[in-house]
């Protein structure tokens, strides 16, 4: 009995060790947390939080298990053709940030959101994908193959809503996630 129990423990341990790699949506969400931490600890200025607008994520070819696996670029709001002021984060397999680089560029004061900052709102929209991706085939491509997220405002109903627009590298579909201004999920839609 003891032997069986120990073998079970070992098997579980190995499974856990192998299951540590994370998906693109989770990496993007963890990058949002890192940006928040960097601003809170005053390592970077508040514009990276308050003017945050767009996130791109790429999968990197790893030279070794310690090298970066994900490259996440967080861009600030910018309506010009110039490249936006941004932060580039490199994350490992587990989503731990290995380092960041700041890139100068255009930055404008973005839309006024409310009590929640745009990084938190993007994080909340990613929670929808992380929660529902494993059980919803349509959403799953945005879990595994997420390539970008943009935060937009939608006032078509007369009420200010958050619209997160997500793309993936698997097909041309777009996932739109609506949240209220407090960051609570309202609905989603997948379009071509």
């Amino acid at each position, binding site marked *: *009995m*003891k032997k*069986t*129990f*120990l073998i*079970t*423990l070992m098997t*579980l*341990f190995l*499974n*856990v*060790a192998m299951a540590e790699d994370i998906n693109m949506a989770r990496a993007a969400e*963890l990058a949002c*947390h*890192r940006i*928040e*931490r960097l601003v*809170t*600890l005053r390592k970077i200025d508040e514009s990276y939080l308050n003017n945050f607008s767009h996130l791109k994520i790429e999968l990197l070819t790893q030279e070794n298990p310690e090298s970066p696996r994900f490259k996440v670029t967080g861009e600030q709001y910018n309506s010009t053709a110039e490249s936006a002021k941004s932060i580039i984060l490199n994350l490992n397999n587990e989503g*731990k*940030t290995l380092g960041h680089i700041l890139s100068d560029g255009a930055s404008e004061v973005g839309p006024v959101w409310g*009590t929640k900052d745009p990084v*938190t709102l993007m*994080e*909340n929209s990613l*929670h929808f994908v*992380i*929660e*529902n*991706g*494993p*059980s919803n085939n349509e959403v799953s491509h945005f879990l595994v193959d997420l390539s970008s997220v943009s935060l937009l405002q939608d006032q078509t109903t007369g009420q200010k809503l958050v619209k997160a627009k997500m793309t993936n590298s698997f097909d041309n579909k777009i996932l739109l996630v609506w949240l209220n201004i*407090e*960051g*609570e999920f309202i609905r989603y839609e997948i379009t071509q």
Partner: protein
Amino acid sequence: MKNIIFVISFFYHLQIYAGPSWYPIPNEAYQLNNLYPEAQRLLFAFDYGHGLVYERLLNQRGKITDPEKFEKELLKSVIAILKNPPQVKMDEDDIAPNYVYAFPLTVNLFDWSHLLHQYVLDVLASSLDRGQKMSDRIQEIFRQYQANEIIAITDVCKTMLFMDGHYFSKKFRRTYPSFNLLIWSYHWFQIRLYDALILPTKVERDLAVKKTIKDFWELISDLPDSADFDMMPETFKVAPLFSNTYPAIAASFDNNHMLHDIVSDLLTSDNISYNKMKIEAIRIGRMALDPEAFKSNNCVR
């Protein structure tokens, strides 16, 4: 008339302050203290530290003009307690009477959950059988915990939005980042101990507990930079062995830890009145009990 008022106030007082009691106390209770006193004393110190910070936040609510200074003073007080931790569990009523009065439901949830946490650690630390008997004993203790359903935090996984999805969320970690990372280091230590103590041989457990204590001190050695957490540590990641063996208990503790952060946010949110804060604490406490509130579809089990 005086007698009636006295009787009513006596029972009202009891209802608020009487913490939950586990009866009969497990035979293994506080074996962790006998086998790993340094780890046990740190756990006592965490309880003390939590009580202290909650009480100070409550007493200074709306009056803190220099949060950085306040945080530094708080850290100094609590680090001193960690360096010279109590040898017995401190009574929270003595450390934090106003907090205990203002948050009766969450205090009861924490007390009950901490007893489960303590007894599970005691069994893991002391069980001579490292197989099925130990596992059965832990499940038996867990069933006793669950049987007190009015104060047993649910073992259904919740999403992180339980912690971060409210209008007052993140207030504490943004106002007091170093102290928040200290609390997340407590959480890390509490759950890492599971994986240290679940190991099959005494030699392995001794080494793992020693390393866990050493790593904890490193985590808090140069706050905030030394504690490199972007998010609250979760059991499936910090203690994967325990989490996979006892997933329901792991989920229950993660929910407990999220509830601690929510209480910190409520106490830090100056724009919520005292009465509203008390009402919100009850509402959130009920969510902690409710398996459907913020239920995760994607539980790591």
